[in-house]
């Protein structure tokens, strides 16, 4: 019997009020994988991610993480178990310094490990080290994204949920951020990646899911999805 995946989602439904944004999704992420979630605007990608991190309550369905049912847990309890989200639009604490933002990411971890993790984040993003005393709101878009990812890494994620890390960034910064995602995987972080930039995301990912109006329309290896004519026509614009 194959080992249980790190994250397994079954029949997940969620949404806002009477509007159902995700209409019964099954999804798995194995330890060490990068899994990309692509689809048009309004397909339910962000809602699905928010349901996994616990910010958005479920209508129904189950979420298992590391062999444990977690759908009843509050967001902070899921962070303690290792599910950490980099929210869409970065959501930094703008008036707080970069350093305070990073320290807040380590809220659930011990003080000793905080310093160690700070070193790790500064090694990954040397620009943040230079700007550690600036308010996070004063950073450029790319630096803010680095800070948001750095803040999530401070929590020592086992599963990193990345929501649109390339949103609003210049093309060369998009490449830089995506290269960082690959480096994180090499360091053993499992990643669930939501991206508008579907081609780049699928090229990077081990596997991918294509979401269409709240349901999974296609799934497979990143390569296979990129080569699938139906996917290419409908979502990749090639």
């Amino acid at each position: 019997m194959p080992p249980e995946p790190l994250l397994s989602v079954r029949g997940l439904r969620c949404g806002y009020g009477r509007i159902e944004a995700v209409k019964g999704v099954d999804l798995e992420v194995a330890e060490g994988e990068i899994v990309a979630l692509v689809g048009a605007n309004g397909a339910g990608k962000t809602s699905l991610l928010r349901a996994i991190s616990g910010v958005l309550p479920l209508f129904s369905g189950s979420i298992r993480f590391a062999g444990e049912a977690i759908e009843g847990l509050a967001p902070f309890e899921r962070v303690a178990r290792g599910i950490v989200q980099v929210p869409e639009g970065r959501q930094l604490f703008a008036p707080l310094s970069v350093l305070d933002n990073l320290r807040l990411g380590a809220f659930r971890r011990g003080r000793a490990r905080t310093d160690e993790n700070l070193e790790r984040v500064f090694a990954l993003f040397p620009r943040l080290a230079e700007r550690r005393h600036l308010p996070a709101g004063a950073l450029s878009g790319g630096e803010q994204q680095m800070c948001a990812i750095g803040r999530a890494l401070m929590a020592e994620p086992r599963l990193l949920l990345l929501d649109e890390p390339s949103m609003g960034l210049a093309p060369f910064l998009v490449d830089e951020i995506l290269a960082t995602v690959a480096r994180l995987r090499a360091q053993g972080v499992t990643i669930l990646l939501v991206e508008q930039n579907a081609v780049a995301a699928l090229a990077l990912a081990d596997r991918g899911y294509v979401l269409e109006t709240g349901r999974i329309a296609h799934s497979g290896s990143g390569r296979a999805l990129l080569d699938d004519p139906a996917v290419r026509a409908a979502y990749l614009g090639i």
Partner: protein
Amino acid sequence: MTPATRSKIALLGTLAVLLLVVPLLFPSAFHLRVAALVWINAIAALGLALLMGLAGQVSLGHAGFLAIGAYATALGPRHLGLDPLLSMLAGVFAAGILAFLVGRPILRLKGHYLAVATLGLGILVHLVVVSEVAITGGPDGIQVPRLVLFGWRVVGPEIWYAITGVVLLLATWIALNLEDSSTGRALRALHDSEIAAAVAGIDVARHKLLVFVVAAVYAALAGGLLALLNRFVTPDVASFLRSIELVTMVVIGGMGSIAGAIVGAALLTVLPQLLTFFHDYEHAVLGLAIVLFMVFLRQGIVPGLAGLFARGRRA
């Protein structure tokens, strides 16, 4: 020494020097009494500054907690034969419990529901102390017995000046440490974005509740000291305008600034004494002051002046 520690020591040092210098400059009993009122109001404003400045929540019925502390100090000795100090501590405890019970369901919600709920709570407390004449003395107020500590009768404006000053110093020290702790960081974070705070692993509801309880405890402590100082409590202490005064102290001094809360309390306590000929228009002047501050010095006195000073140095 980190910059945060340095500014903490600077503020506590300034406050301690001020406490020592004021009696030398203004030795009259009247001045010391006004100064003691400043320290007491500053304690209540400090708690509110933590709630408003750090966590971004507003309490519009904070005088209710002030009144609970004050009336507990008066009612314990009157009806139960308790020691006034013990009654005061019981009142502070009760205010904390009440804040917990009221805050728990409300602070799970996002937005300014706390302002509405505390508004109701403040009016309720006022109503009870006015109408329960048999217990509270109603609109006529109620006497508070003199505080006696181990046979020593605590009396005289100098003594009360010193007691309230020391309590303020301790309250400031605790507030500064709370602000500089991981809890303080968490509060500033959830003020900015509750979602981002939640996904950073912060239990948002619990932290908001914690700071609300702290604010209530600070207010009740101030109320108890006020009762002991005046040796008389009237329903005035619970009035809605009292709550607004407290909010004004925090806003004028500078939201989110511990030093600002103390400056705001000083200004709003001393100004009416200086402007006695304006007495009939006191609340109109208060309203005008808020409007002018919102237009010209939105951040409040302390952060506003600090900003001007920093700009001046750079220029």
